[in-house]
């Protein structure tokens, strides 16, 4: 092994250290430590002359390791590392002893402080002996961006990145982009029509020269690291040749198979070949392989139906005129290279059927928020009229807040938007049914956005009945003639301290926004962590809400937590800006003090694999060892500490280095 020649420099820091610690004595003490060839004390080590002391000694005394005892490394470690580099020594051959913030500034007894300073110097000297040369790496950044999810968040981010001239892959699971916002009727508080403000953006996203829209597609696998991700995408078979389909909708008209429409939240129907909604982007149909008679028949070797393709000739009804229908189409796999990933996968509505006492699913006319959006929407199953299942108009409607939210049994958090959309529903009800009684059952009214409180005031003036109380039960058991054939809402009105029975015809459940069912799978795919509530974890809740612990992967919109459209759009813009900043720089520096697995000692026990917060460790099936992707590794050391074979080395924080430091600090 190369002989170690260590230089020790004890800084006075003016009087900051010297007033309490006897620096000369510490320097004298250090002279006798093993492998120390030079030991000095000086007034200001970080100054130019101070740094020159080090550089000169490196050259003249052939030092190959340096210790500076001064302030906190969080202050000047970079300064002294640069000095070493300037003198031709690897910057990692350096160690600091904090004898200011941790010693001279906090102790009063000179003898004790000096003794402690000696111990800290001794620790640094013993540690630096074992330091190895390390290099910080730089990798190039691929300018393409993947946006995962085509709701308003994904669309916004995609357009912003595409406008800057970079290529965006916009991947959407459903046959059309638009997400939940496309289902809404009006948006609060301005009462803009959701489709009117969203469809222009959808159109841009569908036609933008820099956006490659991959609809009806899913991300299967992501590998790589910031600037260099490889993404495998499965483009599911639509059984429609997209180049030939004009979106005329004839196939949809003549298809004989009807099923419940997902877009209509089960309130309406669609055909087996369908466009999810009229303004769908791309404006193409898709064939649902689960329900299509022909495709089901194929599995049994039969060749039936095909009406969409062939038409019904004996009734002079023509099928598809462009020959776009292709029952032989297969799923396609694409592999793309991107530098940044923006995850905008949105939320899922809480299913209130688990709250049996609210009657959802077994009492008629109990609907969820999204169902009401469809009822109220002019292109919905009732053409925008508020109707009961019987076709009659309701005389009274109750809106229940916090269904599944603020509830220890389901989700503890507040879903943030429900008070506002409940107010919106009240307004739409009062507008369309001026004679109807509208009740809003709330716990607190949360109206904290721009124009939100004013909207609340407006609704109060519109004659909506606000009752502070959480509904206990919805029942159809009448206790009086007025309650016959009604849904009765049982609630304690806490402001007047009375239990009330509200006879209504329709109940709207303002359901929680919850994380999607596939978040666990997605977290794995993208290397994301999740918070206790199940939404994706941001890097820092206050100071870094769009980045994640995986560099180069951003989260925007409701997949990070419930929020309204303005905040979603703002977050999407933020993520786009972050991605663009990285693309404009063109390269990114990778952490040098990473973990590395010694394959001669790794038995592939897999203890480490699940522990990495960044999913940086993978298992090599052929060699039967685990391996750290050093480009992804952040150097936290969790795996190093867990490895039962001691096969993982944490660079710059090795067992040897730390054990020596421990020995040294206890002199």
């Amino acid at each position, binding site marked *: 092994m190369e002989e170690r020649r260590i230089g020790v420099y004890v800084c006075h820091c003016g009087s900051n250290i010297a007033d309490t610690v006897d620096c000369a004595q510490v320097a004298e003490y250090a002279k006798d430590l093993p492998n120390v060839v030079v030991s000095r004390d000086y007034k200001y080590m970080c100054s130019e002359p101070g740094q020159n002391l080090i550089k000169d000694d490196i050259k003249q005394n052939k030092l190959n390791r340096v210790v500076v005892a001064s302030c*906190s490394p969080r202050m000047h470690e970079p300064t002294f590392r640069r000095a070493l580099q300037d003198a031709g020594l690897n910057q990692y051959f350096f160690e600091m002893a904090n004898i200011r*913030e941790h010693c001279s500034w906090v102790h009063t007894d000179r003898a004790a*402080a000096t003794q402690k300073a000696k111990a800290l110097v001794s620790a640094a000297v013993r540690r630096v002996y074992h330091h190895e040369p390390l290099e910080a790496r730089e990798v190039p950044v691929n300018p393409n961006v993947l946006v995962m999810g085509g709701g308003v968040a994904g669309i916004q981010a995609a357009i912003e990145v595409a406008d800057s001239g970079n290529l965006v892959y916009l991947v959407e699971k459903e046959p059309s982009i638009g997400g939940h916002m496309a289902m809404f009727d009006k948006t609060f508080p301005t009462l803009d029509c959701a489709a009117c403000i969203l469809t222009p953006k959808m159109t841009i996203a569908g036609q933008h020269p820099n956006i490659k829209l991959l609809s009806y597609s899913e991300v299967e696998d992501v590998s790589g690291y910031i600037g260099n991700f490889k993404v495998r995408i499965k483009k599911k078979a639509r059984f429609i040749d997209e180049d030939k389909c004009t979106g005329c909708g004839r196939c949809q008209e003549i298809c004989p198979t009807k099923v419940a429409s997902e877009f209509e939240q089960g309130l309406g129907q669609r055909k087996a070949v369908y466009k999810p909604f009229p303004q769908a982007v791309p404006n193409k149909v898709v064939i649902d392989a689960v329900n299509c008679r022909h495709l089901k028949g194929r599995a049994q070797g039969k060749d039936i139906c095909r009406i969409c393709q062939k038409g019904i000739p004996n009734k002079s009804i023509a099928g598809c005129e462009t020959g776009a229908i292709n029952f032989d189409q297969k799923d396609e796999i694409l592999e793309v290279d991107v530098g940044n990933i923006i995850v905008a996968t949105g939320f899922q509505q809480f299913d209130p059927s688990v709250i049996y006492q609210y009657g959802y699913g077994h009492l008629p006319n109990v609907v969820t928020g999204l169902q009401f959006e469809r009822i109220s929407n002019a292109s919905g199953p009732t053409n925008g009229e508020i109707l009961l299942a019987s076709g009659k108009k309701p005389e009274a409607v109750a809106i229940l807040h916090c269904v599944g939210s603020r509830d220890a049994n389901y989700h503890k958090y507040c879903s943030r938007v429900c008070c506002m959309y409940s107010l919106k529903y009240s307004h739409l009800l009062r507008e369309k049914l001026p004679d109807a009684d509208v009740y809003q059952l709330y716990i607190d009214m949360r109206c904290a956005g721009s124009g939100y409180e004013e909207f609340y005031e407006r609704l109060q003036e519109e004659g909506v009945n606000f009752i502070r109380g959480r509904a206990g039960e919805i029942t159809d058991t009448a206790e009086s003639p007025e309650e016959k054939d009604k849904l009765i809402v049982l609630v304690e009105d806490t402001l007047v301290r009375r239990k009330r029975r509200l006879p209504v015809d329709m109940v709207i459940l303002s359901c929680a926004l919850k994380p999607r069912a596939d978040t666990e799978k997605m977290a794995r795919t993208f290397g994301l962590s999740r918070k206790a509530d199940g939404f994706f974890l941001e890097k820092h809740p206050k100071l870094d809400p769009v980045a994640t612990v995986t560099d180069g992967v951003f989260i925007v919109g409701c997949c990070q937590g419930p929020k309204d459209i303005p905040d979603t759009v703002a977050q999407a813009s933020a993520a786009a800006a972050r991605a663009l900043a990285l693309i404009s720089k063109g390269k990114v520096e990778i952490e040098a003090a990473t973990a590395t697995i010694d394959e001669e000692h790794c038995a592939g026990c897999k203890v480490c694999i699940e522990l990495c917060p960044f999913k940086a460790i993978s298992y090599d099936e052929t060699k039967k060892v685990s391996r750290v992707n050093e480009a992804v590794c952040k150097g*936290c050391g*969790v795996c190093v500490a*867990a490895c039962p074979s001691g096969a993982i080395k944490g660079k710059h924080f090795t067992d040897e280095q*730390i*054990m020596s430091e421990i020995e040294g600090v206890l002199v």
Partner: protein
Amino acid sequence: MTTTTFEPKIVGFLCNWCSYTGADLAGISRKKFAPNVRVVRVMCSGRVEPSFVMKAFESGADGVVILGCHPGDCHYAEGNYKTLRRYPLLKKTLAQLGVEDERVRLEWVSASEGDRFAAIVNEMTEQVRRLGPFHQNRGKNVKA
């Protein structure tokens, strides 16, 4: 005849992002506290393995304190949760080895908690001082 007070030697493993910065803050604020804790810096409390704690005692420490970020705030997302997993089992093992409970502590100290750091140092120093040197009662024939 003067009696010399036993001055415990305590090794503190501090994580770079939260607790080490919190300790720096105590320094910047010129808080005054006992000089008995000597700091070993790690990037994350999740790097601290049981061997380090045992090595500290073997090398002459009378106490060990591990300081990390508050759960949920770890710079590396989940590193401190791994520390949280290891600590109870380590304590259980050390208890079986007769190591008194107060000699090893795990505490969460954020970058803004300089006061808390000082308080922990003072408290722990006194607790360990009361317990006496680690290497008492370890029987004969063992390297002290």
